[in-house]
Structure formats: structure tokens, C-alpha cells
């Protein structure tokens, strides 16, 4: 049902009776039979995005930028080259641009036209990022969208929304949380959520730090 409140989109029925699970099975079978695709290559693709590429990559980039001022400069200057220093890049992130939050400015990334997203740093986008509520509202009422995520910014904080309408792919460099001064790079990376790098969240406060 289109009105299903379930965020996972479970329980939907296509209005024309289209059954994606059955269609994809038939499609794979005939594409393999005609020699257009190789099953082992499909498995490699699934394996890569299920396990190897995800927000943990972006979190490493952010943590490095927090502890290394020179890297941070390079990252903001040329995101593609700086991410490549840590071994990240490739499909869906050929042209990476990193934008920095400050105490006065909060950045938010959206793709109103489809689902453009920095794959090498964040993996595949979550369902909400690709769905009409986010894509429609992020550019006109981002503060209300942020409230859906439990983020309340002061009215004086400027908001900058980046609509990813080209192959340039954006990532937010969130503010480093207070109380994180003594943490290792790995611990810092564990504070960096996917939402913080899209701009719908903030980096987590370290355990034990005052809220």
C-alpha cells in the first residue's frame, strides 16, 4: 500500500501488479543465458556494497580531517584527491566535494532529481534519502527535515543545502564534538554517523562527555 507508514517500503503492491522479485529473477536468468552478464560479477558487486563500501569509509576521512589540519585543507580544496590518499574513490564518487560545518553554518546534502550520493565514502544511500519526503522538503524546509531527525538548530545558524544535480558528489565535514580532544583517530571515527556526513545529523558526543 502506498500509504504504508513502514519506512522500509515493505508491504507495497505495485498498482499494475508488477512483482519485482519475480521480474529480477527472470531478468537475471535471461541476461546470463544470452551472455550479457556473468553471475560471479554480480556477486562481486553485491558483496562490495554489502560489506566493503559504507559510511565507515567517510568516517575515516572525517576523523583524519579532525586531527590533521593539513589533510583538512587538502580535503576541502580537492575532495577526490584527499579521499584517494586514504584509498577511497571510484564509482559514484568520481568528483568528490567536501563542505565544512562551522558553528554558524550547517550544510545539508540532497539529490532532488534522483539519488546522487558519494558512494565510495558512504556506500549505497538509505531509503529515506531516495524517497519523496526528503527529496521534496530538503530544499524548501530543511530545518523541519532536521527536526524529523531530532536535530534542532538555533534559528541564527545559517543552513546551506547542496542539491547534487551533477556527477559532483558532496559530503559534509561535521563539527568535531566537544570533549573529543584526547580521543584516538579510530575512536573519533566511531563518532561520525552517516547522517552527520549527509547533514541530517551531528557527530556523536563521546561517551562520558557532558551533553
Amino acid at each position: 500500500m502506498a500509504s504504508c507508514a513502514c519506512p522500509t517500503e515493505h508491504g507495497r503492491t505495485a498498482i499494475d501488479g508488477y512483482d519485482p522479485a519475480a521480474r529480477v529473477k527472470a531478468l537475471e536468468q535471461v541476461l546470463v543465458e544470452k551472455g550479457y552478464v556473468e553471475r560471479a560479477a554480480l556477486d562481486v558487486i553485491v558483496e562490495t556494497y554489502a560489506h566493503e563500501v559504507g559510511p565507515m569509509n567517510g568516517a575515516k576521512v572525517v576523523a583524519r580531517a579532525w586531527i590533521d589540519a593539513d589533510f583538512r585543507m587538502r580535503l576541502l580544496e580537492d575532495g577526490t584527491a584527499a579521499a584517494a590518499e586514504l584509498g577511497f574513490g571510484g564509482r559514484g564518487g568520481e568528483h568528490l566535494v567536501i563542505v565544512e560545518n562551522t558553528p554558524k553554518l550547517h550544510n545539508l546534502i540532497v539529490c532532488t532529481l534522483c539519488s546522487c550520493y558519494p558512494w565510495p565514502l558512504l556506500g549505497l544511500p538509505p531509503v529515506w534519502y531516495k524517497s519523496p519526503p526528503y527529496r521534496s522538503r530538503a530544499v524548501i524546509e530543511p530545518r523541519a527535515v532536521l527536526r524529523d531527525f531530532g536535530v534542532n538548530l538555533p534559528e541564527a545558524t545559517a543552513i546551506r543545502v547542496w542539491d547534487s544535480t551533477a556527477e559532483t558528489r558532496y559530503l559534509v565535514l561535521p563539527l568535531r564534538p566537544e570533549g573529543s580532544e584526547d580521543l584516538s583517530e579510530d575512536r573519533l571515527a566511531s563518532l561520525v554517523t552517516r547522517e552527520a556526513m549527509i547533514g541530517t545529523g551531528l557527530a556523536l558526543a563521546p561517551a562520558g562527555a557532558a551533553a
Partner: protein
Amino acid sequence: MNGAQDLGGAMGFGPVRPEKDEPVFHASWEERALALTLAAGALGEWSIDEGRYARESLHPALYLNASYYEIWLRALERLLREKALLDQKELDSGQMTSPPAPTRLPRLTPEGARRLMAMGTPYRRQPSAPARFAVGSRVRAKVINPRGHTRLPRYARGKEGVVERVHGAHVFPDASARGESQPVWLYTVAFSARELWGEGADPALTVSIEAFEPYLVPCEPKS
């Protein structure tokens, strides 16, 4: 095209509902839909922009009702049919009924798949002309309503903004979706919320789009 994909500023879709601990895929068919889309795309028979056009050409009622991987799958079927790699009978039955057609690029191997994901396919090109605009240029987005693919969202058409970044020359999606190659300059253009949304807009909000040079005209400062 003015399809259901052009969602910026639309209303009535309700709150954003993030899913706690969301898995990468929600069903195994989604994994295969993703992998088949990438592997079939690697045959070189269509560009990423033709792929996007196939998705946004879905009937708006289908587009808005479908999950994202279903949109991908429906578009993939359409592309395979349009490029005569499969016919409708084959799509419906899963059985080969006609001989395979030659493709521009060979079938993706596991090694090729790793390379494809690791290297990507850069979209920056040698410029064929100097950039018309520079950082700080005041520009206006044209009012256009093409039937084909475009990446100029409706909410920015006719609006005045400022060039903030110059990204070099990139593949022009509007041309690429027609199978043509025409690199053009790409800019980040920032608009005030007031300019985009008028009265009552958030005074502390700025929205930017990535704008290809053919979308823009120069704008003289108001005297």
C-alpha cells in the same frame, strides 16, 4: 522532462522516516536489481544519463509508488528492450527466444566489476571553450521545459543566483541522454531561499544546484 522525479519543493509527502539500523538491502531481489543495473550498464549501450531518463520517464503514478530499486528495475527492462538486447517475451519469461545482440563493451567479469567500482568513470572533460562565468558571477537559470532529460530542477528555473564554484568542463547530461557527447562547464550556483521560495522563506537558508553552462545566462546587477 517535467516528470515525477523533479521533487524539489513539492508538498504533501509527509515526514522523513529514517529507519533505525537500516540494512544495506531490504530483500535479496534488491541486491540483484542493483548488480544487474551496474553489469548491464557496463555493456556500454547507454550512458548514465540515458539510464536516469529511463527512470524519470516512468508514469508519475508508478514512479511515486515504487521503491527505488523497483524504479531501477523497470527502467533497466525498458533500456534492454529499447536497445534490442532483450524483447518483451524474454523479459516476461526469463527464457532466451532470440540470439544475443553484439554490444559495445564485453560482458563484465568479476575482475572488471572490481575495477569498475574502484575506478569509476570520471565525467570531467577537456573544455572546448573558455568558461563563460567565474566565481562571483551573477547568473540567471533559464526557463526551459525540455521533453528530454535535464538536470535543471524546476524550482531553480528563472531564478537569479551567484556562481560559487567552477568544476571544470563535464559531460552535459541533456546531450548525453540523447547519446551525444558535448562537454560543457559546470558550476555551483547558490540561490537565496527568498529568491527560490518568495515570501516567508527562511532568511538564513541558501540552496545551491550544480548548473551546466547551457542552463545559465549572465545577469546584470540591479542598479
